[in-house]
Every structure is written in structure tokens, then in C-alpha cells.
């Protein structure tokens, strides 16, 4: 190749900070979430000198990572974080583990003391690569400016390839200041990390034959389908409709299959629907695609779906046979796998057992009649379920593009149960790590990526206080996020477990000394609203949505409402507890069950 101006430009010399920014631009980054400090001043100076990349100044580094997760989850792009050394990096750790557990592609640039001071307990020094090694998919400490550009490009490749995840690049200050060559992203394959994305045809065929012969099949789809891009969700829908099988989604998979479709059984697992869990328990062939047999999903392992042949499609071979042994393993990207399954389904001559499937559906319809998510909105107090359901119905009626994030706890489960997601990438929740304080910064990241969309953080009054400082970020950037607090004055899920497992001794789970959320909103230049009357709920929701700026809506709800259905810890799918007024009641929880979280 001749030396075109581009290739000349490819080796031009810059300082480290400029190399970092150039690499971000070349990898399509438009926005970074960060917080400055001494070690990253050269990078902030480089940011000052350019306009291509927008910087969003958060108020806490944990929030920067959650915002980047929200940005990534809602766009399919890599989210980028910039924090300083020491406390900047350690504050980011919770966000990194959150992204690791939920497989969200994030790059976190951390400042570091200059290389000659590393190991000297210098001011704001932390062993960032040591601390984040188990908190990331991979991390780098750049000690040679000649390798900086290569590391930056590799970080993007690693964050988004295979099973996505967070990557830390630790940048000593002398590296940011020193001069070195900028090289473009390599076109050659990575030396060692080359995850397999195309499924083996034999595995696909084995799966199709099992599914066609199934009498009681079920599709169990998770966050891997979302991570594989919207095409994977479209293919999932096509495959489920073509095969006529029932489909359930994990918490992370909500939106992968349209919630209002008849073939959708709702979410499964600890607070999943009766029909989804019983269908999982009773199926004879299970297709798990992009989910990982999480303990919230399986319940007691030795009683999990005892009679089924299991097919597990996952991009990460370490997910296969980790907790549940499977009969057919398919390693590959969810979209590629679904495309292959569809093609094979249409070509394979094996007849499908349609009469048996019809009988299976009759059974499922019987379970559906339990109407496990029913509640009674009566009296003068708002039921939390009703608040979420009305929020869903009103946003659906308005037809605006709507994104929902949550914090962690009862409100999160009610959001998952009562808010129907018709498409992927519109639901953001901390599934694996269960991070209280996730929802507000995640919503912020979504709103930055989608300025005209309606972005709502369904929150609890306890969780919201964990990253409440981000209200200032909303104000600074005029991000019109709506915070919809289901305020029951308890850490509701803790209270519920104490009621069920610890004799209603509500040890430290009451949210005492709460702020006045209306005044709190106002002090952060947002609109504050409060509603306690069920008759005014709809009007309040409409007013919240209509308001052009950020809103905190304090919804005072039934204080001791519990979240049902529920599979108690240590129980099996067919031992679930239904809500009051329904069959079952509180099943005994064994000591072994109490040990589980």
C-alpha cells in the first residue's frame, strides 16, 4: 500500500492524553461520563481543546459507570467512563462489578500516579489493576506510551467481543503527558482472545430435533439476546412464533420478546409468573438462549425442571454446565444462533409434535387462570403494583419512546412484573449484582443518548438516596429524567424477607428520617410532586410526563405490601407462594433455604 495521507496520519505523534481521545473518537465514542482529579488533568485538558467528544460531569464515580451502562444498554454501543486515580477508581468499582455481572460493555479510564511513583503509596494511589482484576472482564496498566494506542483499541475489542463486559485502562500521569505514536486499530485478529460466535451446525440440528419432538417445550431467553442486538430479539420472536412454543424471559431478557404477545409467559424466577415457573418445571425440552441458569431463576437446583432435556445457547462457554448440566450446548452469538435455528427448523424434515404442543398450551392456559399478578386496588392507599401498572398503561397510551430503569428491591420486581416491554434495550436494571443506586445514573445515561425519549427511573425511597447526588447532573445538563418513587418507608424487600423468614422483626429496615422528596427535587432545580390518593394517581403521572424537565414523583404506597408470586429461597419452581387471597400461602422455609440470599 502506498503512503496515503491516512497512513501517514496513522503514525503521527501526540501526547498520551491526545492518543486516548483520538482512540475514543476512532472507536465511535461521542460521550464520556467522568469526574476530574489530579491524575487525569492532562486528559481533561485535552477534552477542553476539542468538541468531538462530549463530557458529562457526574457527581460520584459510581454513577459515572452506571450512566455509561445505561448509555451502553440503550444504544448497543460501548459506554465510556473517565475517573481519577485512587478514590476515583475505587468509587467506580461497584459500577464495574455491576457491568461485569450483567455483561455490559464499558470502558473505564482511570488515572494513575506517574509510573515512577507506583508502589510508593503516593497521594491518591491505589493498585487499580489489582483491585479491579476480579471486577472487570480485563484490565490494563499502560507503562509504555508506545503501547497506549494499541491498548486503547484492544480495550474496545475486548469490551464488546464475545460476552461483553467492563474493561479498565489505568493511565499513569506521565504516560498522559509523554509523547508517543498514534496507531489505528489493527486489522489483524487478536493474538489470544477470539471468542467463537458462529454456532456448530451439528449442535443446531440436535437442538432442532429435540425441540420438534418435544411435547412440552419452552424457550427461556435472557440478556444475551439483548446484548446480541435488536436483530436477535426479532429472530427470537420469529422463531417462537414459527414454532408455536411458549416463551419466558429472565429479568435481564425483558423486551427480547414482546410482553403482550400470547406466547409470552412473563418473567420467570423468584418473582416470576406462576405460568412461567410451572412451565419451566414441567417442560420436557427447554431452550435456554442467552441466559445463565442464575440462582434467582432456577430456585433449588436439584428440583429445577427435573424432567427436561436442556439446550443451552450461550456465547460464553463457561456458562455451559456451570450450575445446570445440559444435553445440547450451542456456543455462539444469540443472533447467529437464532438465525441458524430458524433455518434448520425450516429445512429439517422432522415433523413437529403439534398435537402435544396444543395440549401443553391447554395446561399453560390453566396455570394462567391463576392470574398470579392480580391485586386489588381498593381503599385510600395506592398499591405499588397499581402505580407501576398505571404508569405502564399511560406511557403506552401516549406512545412516546419510553425507557425504564430501576433501583433494586420490591419496586424493581413490580416494574419487571407490571411494566410490559415490547422491544429490547428499553429496560435497564441491575440484575446480577443487585446494586441499589443504579437506576438514577443509568436513566441519566439513557437520556444523554436519547434526549427526546421519556426516561423513567422506577425507584424505592431507600435506593434512590444511594445516588441522589446525580439530581445535580440532571440539572446541569437539563436531562428530563423522571424519578418515580414507590415510597413505602421501608427497604421493602428486606422487610418482606424479615416478615417471611425472621418473624417480622424489622431490624434496621425502616427508612427513618426520610427527606421531603418534593423539597429535595426543588433544591436540585427539578420539579417535585407527591401523590397519595389513588384517585389522583393518573393525573399525577400525566403531569409528571408532561413536565419538560426532571421530576421526582413521590408516590406514597401501601407500606407493608409484599411482592408475589415468590419462590422462597431454597424452594423449587412448583413450590411458589402466591399473593394473599390466592392458593398456597406462606410455605415453610427450611434452614438450608434461609442460608441462601
Amino acid at each position, binding site marked *: 500500500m502506498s503512503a496515503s495521507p491516512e497512513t501517514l496520519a496513522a503514525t503521527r505523534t501526540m501526547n498520551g492524553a491526545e492518543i486516548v481521545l483520538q482512540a475514543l473518537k476512532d472507536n465511535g465514542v461521542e460521550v464520556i461520563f467522568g469526574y476530574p482529579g489530579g491524575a487525569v488533568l492532562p486528559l481533561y485538558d485535552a477534552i477542553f481543546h476539542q468538541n468531538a467528544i462530549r463530557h458529562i460531569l457526574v457527581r460520584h464515580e459510581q454513577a459515572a459507570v452506571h450512566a455509561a451502562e445505561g448509555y451502553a444498554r440503550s444504544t448497543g454501543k460501548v459506554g465510556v467512563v473517565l475517573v481519577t486515580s485512587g478514590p476515583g477508581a475505587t468509587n467506580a468499582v461497584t459500577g464495574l462489578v455491576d457491568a461485569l455481572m450483567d455483561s455490559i460493555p464499558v470502558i473505564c479510564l482511570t488515572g494513575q500516579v506517574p509510573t515512577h511513583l507506583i508502589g510508593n503509596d503516593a497521594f491518591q494511589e491505589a493498585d487499580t489493576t489489582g483491585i479491579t*482484576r476480579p471486577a472487570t472482564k480485563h484490565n490494563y496498566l499502560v507503562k509504555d506510551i508506545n503501547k497506549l494506542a494499541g491498548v486503547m483499541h484492544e480495550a474496545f475489542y475486548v469490551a464488546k467481543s464475545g460476552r461483553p463486559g467492563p474493561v479498565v485502562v489505568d493511565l499513569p500521569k506521565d504516560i498522559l503527558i509523554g509523547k508517543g505514536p498514534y496507531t489505528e486499530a489493527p486489522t489483524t485478529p487478536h493474538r489470544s*482472545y477470539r471468542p467463537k460466535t458462529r454456532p456448530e451446525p451439528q449442535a443446531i440440528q440436535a437442538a432442532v430435533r429435540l425441540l420438534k419432538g418435544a411435547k412440552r417445550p419452552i424457550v427461556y431467553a435472557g440478556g444475551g439476546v439483548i446484548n446480541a442486538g435488536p436483530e436477535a430479539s426479532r429472530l427470537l420472536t420469529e422463531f417462537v412464533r414459527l414454532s408455536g412454543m411458549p416463551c419466558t424471559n429472565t429479568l435481564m431478557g425483558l423486551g427480547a420478546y414482546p410482553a403482550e404477545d400470547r406466547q409470552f409467559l412473563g418473567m420467570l424466577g423468584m418473582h416470576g409468573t406462576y405460568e412461567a415457573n410451572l412451565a419451566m418445571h414441567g417442560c420436557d425440552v427447554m431452550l435456554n438462549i442467552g441466559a445463565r441458569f442464575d440462582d434467582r431463576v432456577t430456585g433449588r437446583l436439584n428440583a429445577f425442571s427435573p424432567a427436561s432435556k436442556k439446550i443451552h445457547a450461550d456465547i460464553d462457554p463457561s456458562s455451559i454446565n456451570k450450575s445446570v448440566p445440559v444435553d445440547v450446548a450451542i456456543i455462539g452469538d444469540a443472533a447467529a444462533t437464532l438465525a441458524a435455528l430458524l433455518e434448520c427448523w425450516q429445512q429439517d424434515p422432522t415433523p413437529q409434535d403439534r398435537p402435544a404442543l396444543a395440549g401443553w398450551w391447554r395446561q399453560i392456559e390453566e396455570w394462567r387462570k391463576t392470574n398470579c399478578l392480580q391485586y386489588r386496588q381498593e381503599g385510600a392507599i395506592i398499591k405499588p403494583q397499581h402505580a407501576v401498572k398505571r404508569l405502564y398503561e399511560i406511557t403506552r397510551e401516549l406512545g412516546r419512546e419510553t425507557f425504564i430503569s430501576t433501583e433494586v428491591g420490591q419496586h424493581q420486581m413490580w416494574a419487571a412484573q407490571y411494566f410490559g416491554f415490547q422491544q429490547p434495550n428499553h429496560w435497564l436494571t441491575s440484575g446480577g449484582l443487585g446494586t441499589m443506586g443504579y437506576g438514577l445514573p443509568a436513566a441519566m445515561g439513557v437520556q444523554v443518548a436519547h434526549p427526546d425519549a421519556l426516561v423513567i427511573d422506577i425507584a424505592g425511597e431507600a435506593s434512590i438516596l444511594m445516588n441522589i447526588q446525580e439530581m445535580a447532573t440532571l440539572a446541569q445538563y437539563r436531562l428530563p429524567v423522571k424519578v418515580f418513587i414507590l415510597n413505602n418507608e421501608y427497604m421493602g424487600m428486606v422487610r418482606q424477607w424479615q416478615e417471611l423468614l425472621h418473624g417480622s422483626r424489622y431490624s434496621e429496615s425502616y427508612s427513618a428520617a426520610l427527606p421531603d422528596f418534593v423539597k429535595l427535587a426543588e433544591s436540585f432545580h427539578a420539579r417535585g410532586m407527591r401523590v397519595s390518593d389513588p384517585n389522583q394517581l393518573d393525573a399525577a403521572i400525566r403531569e409528571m410526563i408532561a413536565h419538560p424537565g426532571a421530576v421526582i414523583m413521590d408516590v406514597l404506597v401501601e407500606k407493608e405490601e409484599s411482592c408475589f408470586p415468590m419462590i422462597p429461597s431454597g424452594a423449587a419452581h412448583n413450590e411458589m407462594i402466591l399473593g394473599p387471597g390466592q392458593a398456597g400461602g406462606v410455605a415453610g422455609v427450611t434452614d438450608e433455604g434461609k442460608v441462601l440470599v
Partner: protein
Amino acid sequence: MPNPSETALRNATIAVLVENEAGILARVVGLFSGRGYNIESLTVAPVDDARRLSRITIVTSGTEMVIEQIKAQLDRLVPVHKVSDLTLEGPHLARELALIKVVSRGENRVEALRLAEAFRARVVDATTESFVFELTGAGDKIDAFCALMQPIGLAEVSRTGVVAILRGPSGLS
């Protein structure tokens, strides 16, 4: 009833070819401690300077499911090139080197030398009251030698841990 393959423990000698870079050993060791896997022995050294590769040999034990997990978890580390379960892949050689110090006088000293000869251990250091023996072999051979030396003055043992390689022409890279 649980399938015996799900509960029976087996040993595995796993060879891992990795990038020779800072932190790789910490990644591997951290993976084992973080996920609660056993490490019976772990050795590491560069094996290919031109390609910047090191080889780690890990001896571990677990159920078949756990060993499969260990291999998959190792394989998804970014700097890992190849993971090979030598125990499954076929006949392999596994060797350890030990330096064994025996402090004794009189008849015990003579006996120590005699045993060393029987085990083909080499004397690599000697004083009037001590020997350091160098012994290479499978782990159980070194165990047996140390056990025999125990009553006659075994003072200190330093072992390398296991290195292993497949028999025959096929290799890891």
C-alpha cells in the same frame, strides 16, 4: 440419585499457554481463589521468548463439572492462548524437582546416602553434618523419598511443583 460423574472427584493436570505479561499469574490465581477451586500445584515460566509466551501447569481436583468450568474460565481470560487438560488428552509426563536438605551424623548419614542412591537423587551440596539432595520425578516419588528421610534427619524441602507435557509428537501450541 445424583449421577456419579457429577459427584466423583478427579485430578486434572492442566497446561495453559499464556501471554508473558505482568499480572497474568495474578489473574489465574485470582480466578482459582475467587471461584473456590483447588490448586494442588502451580508452576509458571516463560517458554517462548520470541512469541512472548509462558506456560502454566496447574494440578487441580474437582468434579467433572468443576474441572470443565475451570478450563472454560481459564480459556476466557484475554491473555490465555490455549488450555489443555493433559489428564484427558492422553498419556503425559509429569515431573517435579525437589531440593531436600538432610542434617544428620553417623549411621544416619550413611543411610541417607544409600537411600539417595536408590532414588537416583544427586548430592548437590554437602557439609560434615548435612546433604542437599536434588531429586526429579513424579510427585509420589518425591513424597516417598521425603518420608524415608524423615526419621534420619530431614530438615527442609523445596519443591518446584509439577511440570507436564504430552507424550508423543503432538503438542500444545
